């Protein structure tokens, strides 16, 4: 019998893996994928709760998140392109102009 806990634990796992991706990978594109992973994990949690609480606002929220995530990816990738276009390698560690 599946309960909400199953889904949310899955969501937690995906979230953790997404976080790890952001922290460990150098390629900004893959970091972004990690972020997308995290967003998706959260979406899953929302839908799960929506289903088990019989409350649709969770799903509406997911819908909006979907939209915003798409927009964010667009802008983010544009940024990545702008920064890394002229470089040899795509390495986030090289962007350190904000050094303190």
């Amino acid at each position, binding site marked *: 019998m599946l309960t909400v806990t199953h889904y949310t634990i899955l969501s937690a796992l995906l979230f953790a893996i997404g976080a790890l991706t952001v922290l460990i990978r150098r390629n900004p594109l893959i970091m972004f994928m990690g972020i997308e992973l995290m967003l998706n994990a959260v979406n899953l949690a929302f839908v799960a709760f929506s289903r088990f609480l019989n409350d649709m606002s969770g799903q509406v929220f997911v819908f909006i998140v979907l939209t915003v995530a798409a927009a964010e990816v667009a802008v983010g990738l544009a940024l990545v392109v702008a920064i890394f276009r002229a470089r040899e390698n795509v390495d986030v560690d090289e962007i350190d102009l904000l050094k*303190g």
Partner: protein
Amino acid sequence: MLWLIPALPLLGAVVNGLVGSRLPRALSSWLAVAFLGAAFGVSVSAVSNLIALPAEERVIHETLYQWIGVGDFSVNVAFWFDPLSAIMILVITGIGTLITMYAVGYMEHEHDYARFFTAMNLFAFAMLMLVLADNYLLMFLGWEGVGVCSYLLIGFWFNRDNLAVGTDEKFLSPRSSATKAFVVNRIGDFGFMLGIILMFWTFGSLAFEEVFHDAEAMFQIGAPVITIMTLLLFLGATGKSAQIPLYVWLPDAMAGPTPVSALIHAATMVTAGVYMVARSHVLYELAPITLSVVAIIGVLTAFVAATIALAQNDLKRVLAYSTVSQLGYMFFALGVGAFGAGIFHLMTHAFFKALLFLSAGAVMHAMNDMIDMRRLGGLRKIMPITFATFLIGALALSGFPLFSGFFSKDEILAEGYSRGAIVLWVVGVLVALMTAIYSFRAVILTFGGKPRWKEGEVVGAHDKDAHDEHGAHGLHPHEASPVMWVPLVVLAVGALFGGFVGLPHILGPNYFAQFLEPVFGGHELEISATLEWTLIATSTIAALIGIFIALRFYAGDTKIPAQLARDYPSLYNLLANKYWVDQIYDYTLARPGRWLANAFWLDVDGRVINGFADGLGHAFRNIGQRVRSLQGGYARGYALAMLIGIVVVIAVVVARL
């Protein structure tokens, strides 16, 4: 109206201090004289007001404002005007005006006249505050103030190194002398301060009225608290009034201009200690042990200083040690309880010692600042007025009958004997003998005999910064100008006739003692007329013997003194080197002190404190560097930090659930 008395010289100091250097010399200097003279006028008027009151009520207590008010404790700026203060202010303003007037002539070649007269007036202000104060704290303010002015005036020629002209004696530079005076005085002041603190702790107040009243009410004679208190205060007095062990600054203070020596180191500042003890007589009468200490130290100092004076060649040094010695007499009087006699001698001494110093100054002025008596001689014909006044001063100092010093010294000795201090009395008589010897030695060597210098001789040529512009020229000694000898004459009159106000009771009324009766209480000498005549005769004979010895040894350029010096070399060296006290102090106190000060400066302040302060700075900089590395612009690092933060927060929240 009493406040005018210190205020006028203060105003003079302010004027001269601010604009004096822009005024012509004559205006600046005569202004100083005028302010002090005006103060004298006000003093006379105040004293006559005082006399108008009946004898038992002769106290005027005038409060200006409250200076300190903390809880129960308050100290006012207020004046206590009684016969004792009256005498003091008359001496300070009267003799002060004369000396300042003399200084107008003496300092006529000085470029920095404004600074000099500022300090002179400032000194007068401080001294007047000292004697008019109605509480110990205000008195201490004046006490410190005169110390500062003394420092300023001794070190007036701070640029010069060696002022000794025409001799190869090595004296301390003015700057070092000033520092020495201040530091030695500080030691005494420390004692004074401890005494004040003890007083505050015991009585809760520092005002004379309250302290004296409470002291008599709360304590028996011989109470330890009072003994300690009076001893501490006396330590301050030994500093200011140059008694053993703190007298060493006074001879070196001769590095200052002669008017300074006359005013500060003869007539007024050094008498502050005497005044203070006399003022505190209520306390001292409750501490017989302290009184004995005072008397013994007084006599001891008088003796030691007189012996040293016998072997000094510099005229001003002779006079300096003489001052120390005479102050010893005053403390002797105070110590045996004859407070009035001590003050009497204070007054007469002020006259004749100032006179002696100013005359010596006239000689210096004439001889291009040369004052080594071995190079002088035969000046009586060239400077007759100075000679006459100096002679009068010497006679008064020696206690020659009918001169002022005779009466005051005689009263002290008589009081000493009658109160049982026989041994001290004997020593006192010996001191009188020696006083006469060195006084007349000075007279003869300076004015008598044949000149040991040549007209036109150039002295002090190596001292290119000579105070006297005549220095480049040869010696052409001449009598002093009127602005200088008029004060001399006035002082001479005082030295001659000033004693008649205090006649021994077998000869006549003692107005002086009567005047002071409300302060000290009446006391009749309880000795028979015969005894008194005997005592008078003894001191007179001692003086005459002394004069005779001096004449015998020094008149006519005899070889006797030189022979004596050769026969008793160790004794002569001991005296000529002032018992090596300065050297002893240097090795035992000054050097360790300086070593300690250096250690504190370099090690404690330099390493520890600076190290701490710098270290603090370095520490912050290092921390800053390290923290800076967190902001590497390294985005993933930020992300990691965020994650850590999130985990921590969630953990905390979960834990609390």
